[in-house]
């Protein structure tokens, strides 16, 4: 079980909010400092390592940019959303951000509640209210990459790319 203090973001959070275009050519660290600067300036100074992001419908809609990496780098421990955009989900797998769909999650958490996520039985519990929700399982072959730190270590181990 992992737990994290929640930050609630609502529906249709797009990649331009998570990783603004002007930062695409900057370093990963600079990108991580720009997360949500348009919709929640200052958030990157408030989020603590291991915190959870709660999203609504179509979280991560938009571009193929490495927005999932930015979330991971600014300390997000896991992401739960009603639905996750397909391209953002791919990047979550590949950059090792634990990201799962969980119908009902947006209504079940108020900001600051603690979410207790159990991957073993695909459930999340709100520590304040006691509410328990089913989390949609991530296919096992993708979960392995997601939890193994993403796809880069895998490619390096196969001798396809140079190690970092």
């Amino acid at each position, binding site marked *: 079980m992992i737990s994290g203090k929640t930050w609630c973001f609502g529906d*249709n959070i*797009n990649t*331009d*909010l998570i990783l*603004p*275009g*002007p930062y*695409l*050519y*900057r*370093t*990963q660290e600079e*990108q991580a400092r720009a997360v949500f*600067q*348009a*919709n929640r300036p200052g958030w990157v100074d408030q989020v603590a390592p291991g915190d959870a992001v709660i999203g609504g*419908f*179509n979280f991560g*809609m*938009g*571009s*193929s*940019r*490495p927005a*999932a990496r930015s979330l991971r780098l600014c300390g997000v421990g896991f992401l739960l959303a009603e*639905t996750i*955009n*397909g*391209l953002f*989900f*791919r*990047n979550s797998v*590949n*950059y090792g951000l634990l990201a799962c769909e969980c119908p009902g999650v947006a209504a079940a958490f108020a900001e600051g509640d603690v979410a207790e996520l159990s991957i073993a039985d695909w459930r999340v519990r709100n520590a304040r209210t006691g509410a328990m929700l089913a989390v949609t399982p991530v*296919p096992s*072959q*993708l979960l392995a990459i997601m939890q193994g730190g*993403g*796809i*880069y270590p895998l*490619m*390096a181990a196969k*001798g*396809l*790319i*140079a190690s*970092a």
Partner: protein
Amino acid sequence: MGMTITEKILARASGAALVVPGEVAVVEVDTAVLLDLSFLPEGWREVLKVHDPSRIAIVFDHLVPAATVQAATCHKTGREFAAKFGIERLHDVGPDQGISHAVIAEHGYAVPGTVLVNADSHTCGAGAFNCAARGVGGPDMLWAVTTGSAWFRVGETVRYDFTGALRPGVTAKDLFLYIAGKYGAHVNQNIEYGGPGMSGLSINARRTLATMGAEFSAEFTIFEPDDVLVSYMRDRTTRPFEPVLPDPDARYADRRTIDLGALEPLVALPDAVVNQSVPVSEVAGTRIDQAFIGSCANGTLDDLALAAQVVRGRKVARGTRFIVTPGTQSIFRAALKAGYIETLLEAGAVVTPATCGACIGGHMGVLGPDEVCITASTRNFKGRMGDPSARIYMASPATVAASALAGRIAGAEEVFA
């Protein structure tokens, strides 16, 4: 059990007789397209082996010619990578420069019935060619280039059947805005376009609509094949291809019919694309600082022709910047020969070289604080084209050109009356 077009292509590419929604399909990638952004030092790693250099294309597009040292560095890494592995399809700054999706269209890189991946979300534009094309992330691209494969979660498909024909002055962009306004997002779903009205849409119109599929958050956006497609492809590739039709008993999540003749020009309100469409009249008169026509969705020769038709013999309003960016340099040359560029310049437009440019707030048309822009491009998210306080309306090239003349949001009806 019957399959949709997307399911049939994924099945073919994964060597399976059948794929069904919910599965993860591991497929053979026919073509992998890398961009300048693919070579960002923060994501790129030195590649030790590639699966097949002849299946790779490299297109520099987001910041060309290089606007920053970082962009120049990406281009340099890309050139070195191409040279190291003998990748011939390199679209560098020069005569065959362009936005990757437009370059793919022009050169017939998206082969009907196959799978194409590209590191950009608007890759689905190649669905116009009956190709299962999907934007993936940088790491997926490294995987595709080195292993020749990719994975996809198979989603359900929504089918759209078109009847009738678009009226003059109504474009594929308006058709997109209609669908986006009425049906909203298609998260984790595929879109399939067909029906008796489909063949009346030009390849460029199909590309606009397929490209905008990314804004529905769709997985694959794909058109049925027809004679128009087959002859378009025969002119551009010597490779044999086998287009894919859906099975008669294919299973769809929903099936929707749209009468093209009933559509009118629409505008999307700022900050989001879907569920934001209103008739032009509802926002007409809104003052603008900038009007932009370009991007992978609206930088086609047809778009430039339409813009030229609207501004011919007239002048862009004082205090309004009208920026036009062709999708590729070859579109630029064709528009020059056809006289469109001269018409646009005479009217007061600034025509830039082919690049993503203003579409992504990269260069040549970045918006300042509190500015208002109307754009014929792909996205109007907050901060997309520059400062987060800028407001971005989205419409067809005809509406954008008419707005540039007025200095306010305006329709182009009188031109097409």
